């Protein structure tokens, strides 16, 4: 195995000594004729070129194909729009995220694709930070402990808020919150602690409010944390998976990932959840890990590298693909071999073939 693999860059820096004392090879012709400023006064500021008219989002351009003007449902266009591009000049559409309007016309404000939900037109950016939605299962890290709430980093544009009233406290649900709880908030969750939670509400400015009022949520331990872009997470009904090899995966919708040793979750012991919630003790806020065997640790590393291979190839991540990548990785005796870029590509290719259809 090579100790260090060196790749040579393939971006703008790859062209070594380009243009060094050399005559310019490519000249960009300016096709404009002599521009005289006096034209400016006569030119209409809102003048659109013919080209723009072609890009107007109208029903003929959608991919439904049936031409019904009242089609419902979600239509995603494959056409790329860029900032400042006219999206529609028709007043029948409602304008959603990623657009702004000047008069009756709507323009795109990001580079992305147009999505239509019923009469709502929005532009989904190609890339961007995680945008919290109600009900999302996310993983976060405490960045700040406030008076009655925690600030949690969930990789969004603003930190999320976790209110003291939105967590289970030791002693069960019926317990009343007292002033002493406010004073010992660091005993529950402190700076740096990881937890998984559900997005309870989204404020108008886009910040999320979280809750952990279920035994599926709460402080995380017995494992390893890393992140992928949130756009790569495939949303599904559940985001906690029990994987082969004694490992659990918590795949946060925000792209934060937790791999841990599989443990009997409290809810699996055959007692009713409500009763358990009442009996939840201090162990839900424990910082101590259980014993984790070396082979489980290696499996966690293998799963982490499997997900990182998918990340490298920008393949969406879901349960089936993670398992397929894990199976494919067994070809390599040590998980350390999976950090090489061509191995990552091979694994991602295998995964796409295995999970097709």
């Amino acid at each position, binding site marked *: 195995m090579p100790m260090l693999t*060196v*790749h*040579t860059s393939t971006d703008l*820096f790859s062209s070594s000594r380009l243009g060094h004392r050399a005559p310019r090879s490519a000249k960009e012709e300016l096709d404009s004729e002599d521009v005289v400023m006096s034209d400016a006064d006569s030119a209409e500021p809102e003048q659109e070129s013919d080209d723009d008219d072609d890009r107007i989002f109208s029903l003929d351009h959608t991919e439904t194909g049936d031409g019904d003007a009242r089609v419902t449902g979600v239509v995603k266009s494959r056409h790329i729009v860029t900032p400042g591009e006219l999206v529609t000049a028709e007043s029948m559409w409602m304008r959603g995220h990623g657009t702004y309007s000047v008069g009756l016309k709507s323009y795109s404000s990001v580079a992305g694709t147009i999505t239509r939900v019923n009469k709502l037109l929005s532009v989904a950016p190609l890339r961007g930070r995680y945008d919290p939605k109600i009900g999302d299962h996310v993983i976060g*890290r405490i960045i700040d402990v406030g008076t009655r709430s925690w600030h949690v980093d969930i990789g969004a544009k603003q930190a999320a808020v976790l209110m003291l009233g939105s967590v289970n406290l030791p002693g069960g649900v019926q317990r009343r919150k007292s002033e002493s709880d406010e004073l010992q908030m660091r005993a529950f969750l402190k700076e740096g602690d990881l937890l998984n939670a559900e997005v309870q509400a989204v404020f108008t400015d886009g910040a999320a409010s979280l809750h952990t009022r279920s035994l599926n949520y709460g402080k995380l331990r017995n*494992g390893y944390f890393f992140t992928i872009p949130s756009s790569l997470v495939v949303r599904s009904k559940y985001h906690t998976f029990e994987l082969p090899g004694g490992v659990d995966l918590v795949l946060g919708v925000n792209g934060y990932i937790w791999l841990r040793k599989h443990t009997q979750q409290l809810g699996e012991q055959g007692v009713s959840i409500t009763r358990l919630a009442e009996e939840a003790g201090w162990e839900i806020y424990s910082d101590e890990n259980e014993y*984790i065997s*070396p082979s489980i640790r290696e499996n*966690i590393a293998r799963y982490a590298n499997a997900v990182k291979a998918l990340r490298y190839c920008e393949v969406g991540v879901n349960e089936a693909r993670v398992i397929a990548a894990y199976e494919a990785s067994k070809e390599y005796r040590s998980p*350390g071999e999976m950090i090489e870029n061509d191995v990552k590509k091979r694994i991602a290719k295998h995964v796409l073939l295995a999970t097709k259809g």
Partner: protein
Amino acid sequence: MPLSLAEESFLNVSLSQRPPCRSDGRNQLQFRPIDAAAGILPTTNGSARIRLDDGGECIVGVKAEVMTVSRGSDVVNVEVDCDIVGLPANSPLQNLLCATLEMAIKNALPSRLLRITNKYRYKIFVDGIILDHVSHPLTLFSMTTYLALLDTRLPRLAPDLVGNDNDDKDEIGIPQFSSDWADADRLCQNWSPPLVQLGIVVGKNVFVDATGEEAEVSDGGLLTVWHDGRVVGVRVVKTRDSSKQVFSVSSISNAVEVLANASRDIEKALKGIISY
């Protein structure tokens, strides 16, 4: 961002058990793949860029300036400077990087390589920008500097001046250089730059190319300066605020041996990028 206590103890146990299990499965001597390019900046005498897969990135440019020296002086004029984005100027980390590299190069570079005439010498400026670092930037900066120095070329004197400058009695103006860049001399024709490696120690284990989180749970770090096939300098470094920095003699000698092996591999890999 600090790690949680549970994460910290998970990583610490994984790294200190025997055999250790790194969070990305690498063995102790294994580096993450890097993306490297040399000769990327036309305004420099030599330049290089290295990117790590965690987003860490460093660009180094080497510039040579002509200086006058008093007769017989043997000073090697090298200045190393770097700008670490996100840290203020003169931060401890920046000082560590610059001082270590500058000392290493000064000790390793023979003064004859910088000689132009008896009166004029080159002064070498090594400037780096560390655009981003997640793990400790020392190894990254050293590798990029190594590559940039390998790429460095110094212009030759103009041909008509070469013959008569040996006893430069009436050497008045700044020497004239050949304008042909292709004709310039490689600084590293017969010389290898030094390479600084940082290893981290967790329990009895030593790791090269530590990730940020690995350094965060380490007992401490050890840097070695590698030049000409052997280790010429060792130093203990703090890798986190609460690191112990107390090592046994045996663990230090073990670490030095590990880092020496790693340096040998890296040197070979980096030299493979530049073809003379």
